[in-house]
């Protein structure tokens, strides 16, 4: 994960659900690039292409509500998005984004401060989002979560963990 | 009229399923433009392939069909869940002795077992001729008479005999011909069992199959329609191209093996072949008799853990009756999965897809490579008893050991 990302914004509203992000009929693969070919398709056939022209997805409240399907996060990775900024996230999407290595930022003022196509910059170390209308701060993620995100998701994280530790940890008391 | 003549006959019943109506409707409206349907009341539409569409494409096809029926004022539309197209047509009294029945489903000859002249004709034939003019053209076929003599051995059903004939005589043996089935076996079978012979005459490429209707057929029809009909009897001097006699006493349970329907072997020759799916359904399975036979074998036993057993009743009425008889409970307790009355896994339009390396044994009618998903999957066809025994063993199995 890069410490800073910068790029053009694609804008969505509140309560964007996982059926809209990636329909169940496309869950036949777990390859992010293949999934990206169908991202947001339900909104129009042009959407998967459109998505690729942007770098950062900005949405309102409750982004990613609905199913626990992880592909809702990984298809965005496949589409080349570098981060998602939302006023709030549904919790399964939040977890799935971390697990697929997609940086997420919860920062409510951003949604109202940008237009589609404008540039924003996110600085993860400082916890800021800079928009044409000003810079906003967001609380950082807990270190244990950042550890997963930093290596690019849960699979690389597990690979690393087992390469160093060798065996699973002992069972809880 | 003599064999070889072309005749144009008035059609009494046209049977469509969801796939054939869609294709015929498209041809009728886009190629045969500006015509109206002469006899809407003779058209029977049954949605049996996409019984609960898993795809938008399926939903669109059914929707287009409903709209076609509405546009052309077709009153007899049986929507998803009613049953298999042929049995639904029978159940609702559209088939009578002496009737001329056509459909673009290749198994339309099944109705010859009720004394109808029934055959499969193409969508274009129906769109260009039957719908606008109410007729169909036929070349009068030469007729072969097959005499089936004797009684069936334990564990052997009409299905096995019909399949045995295909294996013995060949897949194109009766090309362009009609077969009349007779002999002392037939009166010993219930009416629905007899239907297996004309049904499977298509596997020998016959144009039609026929059984001279008797009182049992008349009673069966009377339960389903108030319309009058005549029991058409053969002319005493009817001419047959040939008459052949088969003794059925020695016939064993039969299995049609990949890659074609004519690759028929006694079950003993293929027993032990592992299977992952078993299905009782389709036009030759899933009748009340099949469900009873299935329950007889499964009662108190469990389907093998590696096998998915799928049961598809042929009509809603059969399912209802099977519920009342406690059959469904027996099947469920054995681990079977019951599906809506339909064509089940036929062509895997709605269910029953196989991946490479998998095998299915079923009472369906076709086993060509790619019929149900991967061309590298294998499909075996057999009687309900054999499918039941195989579901228990996880391998193709001889049903006779379960039928002491």
């Amino acid at each position, binding site marked *: 994960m890069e410490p800073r990302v910068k790029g053009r914004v694609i804008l969505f509203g509140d309560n964007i659900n996982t059926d809209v992000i990636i329909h169940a009929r496309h869950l036949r693969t777990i390859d992010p690039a293949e999934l990206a070919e169908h991202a947001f398709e339900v909104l129009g056939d042009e959407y998967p292409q459109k998505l690729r022209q942007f770098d950062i997805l900005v949405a309102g409240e409750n982004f990613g509500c609905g199913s626990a399907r992880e592909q809702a996060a990984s298809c965005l990775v496949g589409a080349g998005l570098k981060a998602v900024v939302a006023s709030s996230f549904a919790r399964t999407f939040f977890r799935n984004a971390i697990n697929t290595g997609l940086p997420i930022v919860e920062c409510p003022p951003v949604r109202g401060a940008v237009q589609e196509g404008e540039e924003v910059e996110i600085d993860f170390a400082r916890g800021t989002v800079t928009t044409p209308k000003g810079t906003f701060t967001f609380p950082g993620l807990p270190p244990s979560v950042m550890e997963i995100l930093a290596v690019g998701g849960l699979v690389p994280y597990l690979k690393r963990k087992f390469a160093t530790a060798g065996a699973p940890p002992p069972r809880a008391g | 009229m003599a064999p070889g003549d072309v005749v144009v006959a008035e059609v009494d019943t046209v049977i469509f399923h969801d796939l054939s109506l869609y294709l015929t409707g498209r041809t009728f409206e886009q190629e045969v433009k500006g015509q109206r349907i002469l006899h809407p009341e003779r058209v029977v539409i049954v949605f049996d392939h996409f019984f609960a569409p898993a795809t938008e494409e399926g939903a669109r096809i059914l929707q287009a069909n409903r709209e076609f029926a509405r546009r052309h004022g077709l009153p007899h539309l049986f929507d998803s869940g009613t049953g298999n197209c042929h049995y639904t047509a029978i159940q609702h009294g559209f088939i009578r002795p002496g009737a001329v029945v056509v459909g673009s489903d290749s198994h339309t000859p099944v109705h010859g077992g009720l004394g109808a002249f029934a055959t499969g004709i193409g969508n274009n034939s129906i769109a*260009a001729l039957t719908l606008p003019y109410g007729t169909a053209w036929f070349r009068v076929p030469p007729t072969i008479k097959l005499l089936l003599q004797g009684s069936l051995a334990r564990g052997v059903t009409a299905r096995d005999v019909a399949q045995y004939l295909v294996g013995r005589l060949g897949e194109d043996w009766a090309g*362009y011909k009609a077969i009349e089935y007779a002999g002392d076996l037939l009166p010993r079978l219930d009416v629905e069992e007899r239907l297996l012979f004309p049904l499977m005459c298509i596997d020998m490429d016959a144009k039609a199959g026929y059984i001279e209707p008797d009182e049992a057929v008349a009673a069966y029809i009377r339960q389903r329609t108030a319309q009058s009909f005549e029991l058409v009897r053969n002319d005493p001097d009817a001419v047959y191209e040939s008459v052949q006699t088969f003794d059925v006493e020695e016939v064993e349970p039969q299995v049609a093996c990949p890659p074609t329907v004519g690759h028929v072997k006694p079950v003993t020759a293929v027993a032990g072949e592992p299977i992952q799916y078993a299905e009782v359904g389709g036009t030759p399975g899933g009748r009340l008799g099949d469900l009873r036979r299935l329950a007889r074998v499964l009662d108190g036993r469990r389907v093998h853990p590696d096998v998915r057993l799928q049961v598809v009743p042929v009509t809603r009425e059969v399912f209802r009756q099977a519920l009342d008889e406690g059959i469904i409970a027996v099947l469920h307790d054995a681990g079977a999965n019951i599906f809506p009355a339909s064509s089940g896994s036929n062509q895997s339009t709605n269910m029953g897809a196989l991946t490479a390396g998998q095998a299915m044994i079923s009472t369906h009618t076709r086993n060509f490579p790619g019929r149900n998903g991967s061309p590298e999957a294998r499909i075996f066809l057999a009687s309900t008893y054999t499918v039941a025994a195989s579901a228990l063993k996880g391998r193709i199995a001889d049903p006779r050991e379960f039928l002491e």
Partner: protein
Amino acid sequence: MSALRVRGRCWKVGDNIPTDAIVATANLFKPYEEMARHVLASVHPEFVLGVKPGDVLVAGRHFACSSGRAVAPKALRATGIGVVVAESFARTFYRNAHEIGLPILECPGITEQVREGDELDVDVEAGLVRNLTLGQTIQAVPPPPFLRGMLKAGGLHAYLELHGGEFVS
């Protein structure tokens, strides 16, 4: 050259080719051009890649068995082939092909006498197949007059339009 006289390259397939292999169920509702791209792909993958308008498909016994599927001859026609010559045809396909005006010819012994890639000249009306590469002529079974009339008209619908909804003998 009329539609009932075809000259082209020979493509060969074996016995008992089902309609499932001509148009798989999954392609049943696609446009004909799309269907044409998959015709016989599971039994002869090179066919759709190399077939040219006017080519000749030669098959063994019982060609196009299995489901009635009248789209099968339409999909074959959409590949551009001019005629199908086979040892024998399944009944429904025989009907369907004539009804849509796709020339077909029953020719016992054909598979022994032509090789894939041979140049063939097929005269449907006369019931003759000439193997121009080998310099041989093979006698086939010409269609009966009734079906010949249908073929000439371009299929059943065209025939009925031509004759005002009547069959003429």
